[in-house]
Structures are given as C-alpha cells and as structure tokens.
C-alpha cells in the first residue's frame, strides 16, 4: 500500500493538468480554424452554406458534448479507424468549438455597420479584399473578448473527455480517488486546478470586454 500525501495528490494532478491544457489548445486552435472556414463559407454566400452552417451549429449547440464525444469514439471505431482517446476527444472538441466560434464570430461580423459593406462594394473590392481590409480588422476587435471568454468553456469541456478514457485532470482525479479513498480532498484539488486555469482567462476576458466598452 502506497501512502499518498497531499503533495503526492497535488503533484500527480498537476502532471495530468498538462493534458487538459494540451487538449484545450488542440480544440481551441482546431475549432478556430474550422469555425473560421464555416464563417467564411457563410459570408461568401456559397449555395447552401447559410443553411448548412446553421444546421451544423444547431446540432452541436443542441446536443450534449458528452454524446458528441461518445459518437466520435464509437463512430470512428465503426469506420475502422483505430481510435485512441486523443483522436476521439480532439475531433469531438474541435467540432464542438468550431460550431460555437462560428456563431460567436458571425455575431461580431453582423455588428459591423452596413455602410462599411456598401462602401467596400462601391470600391469594387473583391471578397478577399473586403475581408482582409474592411470587415476582418473591425470584426476582430469586437471578437476578441467573447472568444477569450469561450476558451473557458473549452477548458471546462475537456473534463468530459475523461469519460471516454482520456487521462486528463478529471480522470486523474478519479484514478487517485480510487487509490486513496479521499474523494473530498482529491476533487477539491481538481476543482482548484480548474479554477486556477479558468479564472485568469475569464478575468482577462472581462477586462477586455470592459476596456472595449469604454472605447466606444
């Protein structure tokens, strides 16, 4: 029987927290890329893109992330892909994040006054030029605070990956609990670490939000 001191618990959780951070970054960056592609498809008014993206968003926002993880896990296995928890969790969280970011950013683009679009059109700018020089820079400024805020949701979302066997902070907590029989202490530590990860991000998002509103 190995005795776990509080420090042992803490150290092991800290080691597992690396994977929470890694998975969050994968989901956030991957989701950002896919979300941007969805947004551009919508703005470029490709046939069917408007509806397609709306349905996509509704699907991911209207179903539990846990089910999406299970579907990625079982679905990939069905396709004959050898699924590690990394692939399934990475895929599910990327798609989930992309749906939310595409929606958030659409709101930001919509907040740009119509006159800007019309001015860009009257200068005969191409779609790419419009995005690059007129819409993009303005939307980006509006988009930063809510995007940073959503990062908190992504970090919290990675906790669900524990359910399909991805060893991150929550899963490590469960494993350590099974070894030490001290659920209260362990889960309190786990919660504390999530708080340490998320709180600075939400505080930063709030600060951005506030300074943005002051500017206006």
């Amino acid at each position, binding site marked *: 029987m190995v005795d776990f001191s509080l420090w042992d618990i803490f150290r092991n959780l800290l080691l597992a927290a690396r994977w929470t951070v890694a998975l969050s970054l994968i989901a956030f960056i991957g989701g950002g890329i896919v979300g941007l592609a969805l947004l551009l498809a919508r703005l470029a008014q490709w046939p069917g893109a408007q509806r397609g993206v709306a349905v996509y968003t*509704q*699907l991911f926002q*209207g*179903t*539990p*992330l*846990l*089910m*999406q993880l*299970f*579907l990625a896990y*079982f*679905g990939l*296995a*069905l*396709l004959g892909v050898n699924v590690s928890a990394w692939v399934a969790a990475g895929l599910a969280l990327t798609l989930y994040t992309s749906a939310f970011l595409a929606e958030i950013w659409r709101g930001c683009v919509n907040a740009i006054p119509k006159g800007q679009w019309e001015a860009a059109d009257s200068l005969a700018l191409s779609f790419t030029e419009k995005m690059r020089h007129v819409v993009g820079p303005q939307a980006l400024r509006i988009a930063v605070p809510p995007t940073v805020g959503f990062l*908190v949701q992504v970090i*919290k*979302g990675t*906790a*669900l990956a*524990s*359910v399909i066997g991805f060893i991150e902070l*929550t899963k490590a*907590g*469960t494993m350590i*609990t099974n070894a030490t029989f*001290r*659920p*209260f202490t362990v*889960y*309190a530590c*786990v*919660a504390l670490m*999530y*708080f340490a990860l*998320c*709180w600075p991000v*939400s505080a930063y998002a709030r600060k951005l939000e506030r300074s943005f509103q002051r500017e206006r």
Partner: protein
Amino acid sequence: MIQLDFLAVLSQWPALLRGAAFTLLLSAAAAVLGVGLGIACGWARAWGPKPLAAVVGVYVEAVRNTPFIVQLFFVYFGLPSLGVKLSPEVASVIAMVVNLGAYAAEIVRAGIVNTPKGQIEAARSLAMTELQVFLRVVLPPALGRVWPAMVSQIVIVMLGSAVCGQISAQELSYAANLIQSRNFRGFEAYIVATAIYLVLSIAVRQFLNWMGPRFIFGRLPQAGR
C-alpha cells in the same frame, strides 16, 4: 462495409422513453430551484449587504470556472466523507441547482442593474417596502429583459445533465449506455439518444419562450417597457 442496426436500439424504446422523461424531470427540478437560487443570489450581488455580495461573488466565480462534471463528482463522491450520503438522483439535482444558480445569478443581476432609477424611486415614494419594490417593480421586467439568456442557460444545464449518467442517475445517456452494453450497438444507441436530446432541447426552448411572458414576468402592465 458499415452496417447500422437502429432497430436493435429502437426496440428498447421504453428504456429510452423513461430516460428522456427522467432527464426532463431532473432539468425541471433544477430549473425551478436553480432560477430561484439565481434570483436570490442576483439580488444579493446587486442590492444585498456588502459581505453577502462578496460571498455570493465567490460562489459564482467558483462555479463558473470549474467543470460541471467535477462539481457533480464532488457532491456525489466527496460529500459522503463529510457524512452527507446522497442518492445519485439527489446528488444530480443538487449539482445542477448549484451550477445553474451561479449562472442565473449573473443573468438576473444583469437584468436588475439595468432597471431605470426612476422606477425604483417611484415605487419607494408609494411607500412600498424594499421587498415589495424588488419583487413587484424590479424583478419582473428584469427577468423579462434577460429571459432569452436564462432560457439558453436552462437548456445548457439540461444538456449538461447527460453527465449525471456517470454517477448512475438513470437519465437518457444512462439509458443509451445500458442499451449499448446489452447489444453492443454503441454508435446507434448514442445517435438515437443524441437525436432525442436535440428534440428535447428544441422543445424545452420553445416551451420556456412561450411560458416566460405568460407566467413568469408577463403579469405586469406592459406600458413603459
């Protein structure tokens, strides 16, 4: 070749139906209690005495910056070591209420702080007590202003309740898990469960949007809003 067999899953519809009903029951309990808690906490943060507002602020930040699954595990696995033993169902409701309460508090507060000063002064000049001012003058239009956000949050909590199956609360995702352990049709079972969640989330949203103006904040005269 992939062969999907949905019949094997759909033939277990009683389990799915029971699971869906249980998910709705959990969510309804959490919504009523959670919004109540949120109103109390929203009041405390906007109008309450300073120390109380600070305590509530800590609660709100703590909940909003930790994952629901950890909160649930803490309630279900952690609290028994303090002598509080809970059934999975009670633990689920408690975790959901605590979770929703924190988000609802922020939502309610946003509604409260946007109340025009003149309305509060007018109510006070009519010799209403502070409680009356809050419950009759400030709260209903405040809820009306933030109702869309509140509805979204309730739906999010309902979808989050899928995690409660992990502590064997017998809701929809638990039913799906049970079915797939019987017939090994994991993908089909979760597809069906996910589709049911989608229907539930759309239905609950529609219902709450319909209900809000009629029963929650609509009994005030509409003038002046």
